[in-house]
């Protein structure tokens, strides 16, 4: 029986990939930005894109996440940080922290920004190994110090790979000591530049990742730990403490540094997920009519396949990351690769496998 078309949900959040360039050369980056020397060609002036965000407010926009590349490389970033709150929009940011000084910290404070800073280990040897630029560890800690001086709350994000796995249990305390109020652990998967890391055995297997998770300490004093695994692979105590972590994909759109709309930053690399130039087509038209987004609304969550379609967390997790799944298997609604691997290895908890009545073919 044909399903009725879903109503268009509000566009809650834009992921704005402010610039396509970065001052670091992170070996695991899935966006694969170019180096700083080429940056002049890798952003649009804010004035060229600001109208897009104004239009998006009519679609329900409430929040903009600034990411990149490194957002502080955009010459208009301070103006962007000032304008978004003035437009009534919440601001989030992902930054490597190396370019944050007093001026940038004050701008983040004035914007009331909810932001995160990458920190991959407690030593320069580890952090700089992954970030691939000597001295980045010291610059990141200086950036964190500038944020502390302004009394800012921020999250540290640590990308997990073989070299920092042993030291990870000490990272919550280390990050807290440098002013972070929470730590998010991202597991590096094979995507973008990290394909090479996998080839060299630098990525952890799923059993290794789960073993590292099991060694993480309980955190206290309000410090939170988020381990970025699908909920079915987390200890239930994490879910009780932090919630299931409902995916917001049905209310999110990516705006790329070149002015194109995309499912997220992946649109830059996969033409199928590039939804067109927002200087030529309105964001309203993209959001309401792009076939990929329309289908997404019909298929998520009831059309999820494989283990994700039989998971107790299906409706909240929404397949964890459909862009990652598309990259891995060429379709948006298959099983998330980590969960598929867990099932194959017998590591997917039986108690979380259920029968959903609402299923879309």
């Amino acid at each position, binding site marked *: 029986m044909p399903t009725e078309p879903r109503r268009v949900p509000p566009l809650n959040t834009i992921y704005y990939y402010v610039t396509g360039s970065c001052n670091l050369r992170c070996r695991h980056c899935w966006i694969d930005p170019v180096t700083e020397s080429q940056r002049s060609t890798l952003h649009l002036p804010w004035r060229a894109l600001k109208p897009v965000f104004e239009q998006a407010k009519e679609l329900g926009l409430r929040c903009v996440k600034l990411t990149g590349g490194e957002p502080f490389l955009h010459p208009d970033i301070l103006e962007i940080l000032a304008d978004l709150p003035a437009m009534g929009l919440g601001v989030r940011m992902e930054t490597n922290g190396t370019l944050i000084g007093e001026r940038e910290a004050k701008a983040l404070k004035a914007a009331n920004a909810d932001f995160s800073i990458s920190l991959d280990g407690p030593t320069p040897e580890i952090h700089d190994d992954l970030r691939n630029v000597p001295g980045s560890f010291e610059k990141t800690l200086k950036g964190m110090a500038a944020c502390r001086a302004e009394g800012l709350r921020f999250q540290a994000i640590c990308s997990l790979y073989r070299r920092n796995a042993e030291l990870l249990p000490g990272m919550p305390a280390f990050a807290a000591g440098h002013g972070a109020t929470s730590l998010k652990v991202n597991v590096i998967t094979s995507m973008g530049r990290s394909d090479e890391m996998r080839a060299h055995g630098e990525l952890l297997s799923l059993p290794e990742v789960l073993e590292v998770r099991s060694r993480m300490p309980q955190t206290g004093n309000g410090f939170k730990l988020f381990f970025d695994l699908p909920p079915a692979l987390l200890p239930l105590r994490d879910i*009780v403490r932090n919630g*299931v972590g409902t995916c917001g994909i049905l209310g999110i759109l990516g705006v790329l540094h070149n002015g194109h709309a995309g499912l997220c930053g992946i649109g830059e690399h996969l033409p199928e997920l590039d939804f067109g130039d927002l200087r030529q087509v309105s964001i309203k038209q993209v959001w309401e009519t792009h076939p990929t987004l329309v289908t997404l609304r019909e298929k998520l969550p009831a059309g999820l396949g494989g283990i994700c379609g039989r998971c107790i967390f299906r*409706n*909240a997790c929404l397949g964890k990351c459909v862009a990652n799944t598309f990259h891995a298997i060429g379709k948006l609604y298959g099983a998330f690769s980590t969960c598929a691997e867990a099932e194959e290895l017998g590591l997917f908890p039986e*108690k979380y496998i*259920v029968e959903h*009545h609402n299923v879309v073919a």
Partner: protein
Amino acid sequence: MSKLKLNPELVFREDNDGGLIFDPATGDVQVLNETAAFICTLLDGTRSAEEIVAEVLEEFEVEDPAAAHADAAQFIESLLSRSMAMPA
């Protein structure tokens, strides 16, 4: 006083840290803390609400028994009001 049970159309899962109630019809899942999960294990058709609350107070060390009593009773009431629990 009527004995209570979980709605048999729902799926309940638990471990030492808490539990989940899953509704196959909607796909919704409710996360339960340790105490709420313990209450759900007692919703097996052999106990009344008062008996369940009494067992909760016996099982857990609480600083404020009156508040714990009220919390447990309120949780059971919320399950009943949403048809997640019912008379056996």
